[in-house]
């Protein structure tokens, strides 16, 4: 029974670990980009601009905000072939303009809708692989919960991001069990566990005291 439990835990640790390893790499590599405010530009940023006119805009569009505004913008953006996650929309009352950021990991699109002329200027920038990793790392994020996850793909991403956390927690706990079973490694393991605990709480206390 004990042997079966050990083998099952070991296999789950291995296979689930292999499944989430690309996600762990994604989150780990992007840490360096965040911490050092640096992204490698493997390919040059490219931008293209196009204009779409004769837009069919709902009359109450300028009065909307938050999720209702995002919901109203979705079919408009779809008609202009601009897919992606809609960010915080800026409404410039003076110029009667809506500026809508739309993102796909690795691509940033800015759509400026001229409400009076029913015309949109769409600027699309290919931001690259590193930027894609950073976008995914911080998605959905803590800001603007009311409007976030307005693109089905990013909803799916949240499931994967959550699954990565749950599986990481499982793998870490099962890893502790698999280590503890190895009697010869217990002493050095305890020393490292203690040293890591001390380091973590020491630094966390120092920065937050």
């Amino acid at each position, binding site marked *: 029974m004990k042997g079966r439990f050990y083998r099952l835990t*070991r296999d789950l640790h291995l296979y689930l670990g292999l499944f989430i390893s690309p*996600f762990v790499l994604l989150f780990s590599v992007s*840490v360096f980009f965040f911490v050092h405010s640096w992204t490698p530009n493997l390919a040059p940023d490219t931008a293209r601009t196009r204009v779409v006119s004769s837009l069919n805009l709902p009359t109450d569009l300028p009065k909307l905000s938050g999720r209702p505004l995002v919901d109203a913008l979705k079919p408009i953006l779809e008609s202009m072939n601009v897919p992606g996650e809609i960010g915080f929309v800026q409404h410039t009352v003076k110029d009667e303009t809506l500026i809508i950021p739309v993102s*796909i990991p690795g691509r940033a699109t800015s759509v400026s809708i001229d409400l009076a002329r029913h015309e949109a200027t769409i600027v699309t920038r290919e931001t690259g692989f590193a930027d894609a990793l950073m976008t995914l790392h911080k998605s959905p994020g803590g800001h603007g*919960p009311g409007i976030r996850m307005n693109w089905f*793909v990013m909803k799916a991403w949240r499931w994967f991001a959550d699954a990565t956390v749950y599986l990481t927690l499982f793998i870490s706990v099962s890893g502790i069990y698999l280590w503890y079973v*190895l009697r010869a490694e217990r002493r050095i393991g305890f020393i490292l566990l203690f040293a890591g605990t001390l380091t973590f709480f020491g630094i966390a206390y120092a920065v937050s005291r």
Partner: protein
Amino acid sequence: MPSAAEPVVAASSKTPARSWAGFERWNRKLHFYSGLFLIFFLWLFAFTGLLLNHPAWTFHEHWKNRQETNDERAITAPGTDAVTDLDQARNIMRQLGIEGDILWTTTRTDSSLLEFQVRRPGHFFFIKADWTKGNATVRQADVNLWGIMKVLHVFDGNVADDPRNHRDWALTYLWAYSMDAVAAGLILMVLSSVFMWLRLPQKRWTGAIVLGLGCLCCGLFCLGLRWLF
């Protein structure tokens, strides 16, 4: 109990084979040594990542539950050696006994006024120093343990696309480099685990399918979306 990943070496192995076995043994050891050392860091970043992804979960609300105090304190004008905004802010912080990373939120319009924020996990200081009046107003907001944990997840002293805001506190450097170390440790653990799996012939196919599935799902988001949409 021996692990399935434990290499078996014949006593009569030649030197290259023995060094290879030594590498395998140490690869395996380093996998769980780094895991054990980083376990609390890993739990913090994993758990707070989950919390940050679910702002609608109310149990970890920290900003609404903050405790605020307002204070007005006497200060003296920074000396002539404090030339830059950063020097002057540090001088004011020393006088007020406040430590943390400086966040610039406003553009300065008056050379005798300095408005800035100081942050460290759990504590936020909003400072307005006016040395013509010889005082500084300090609004301090303290948040709960959830707030401390979530700030630790993102506390690197930088603000995206704002070169004015960068790390300026020694402990921010320490925490930021800890984040680097955790990320490097995790990359090492992933690579060592792939190596250990490759040394298990009986688990190679199942592992390849599972790893391939993971790569496919992850690759779809990292690269595929730009092709599909």
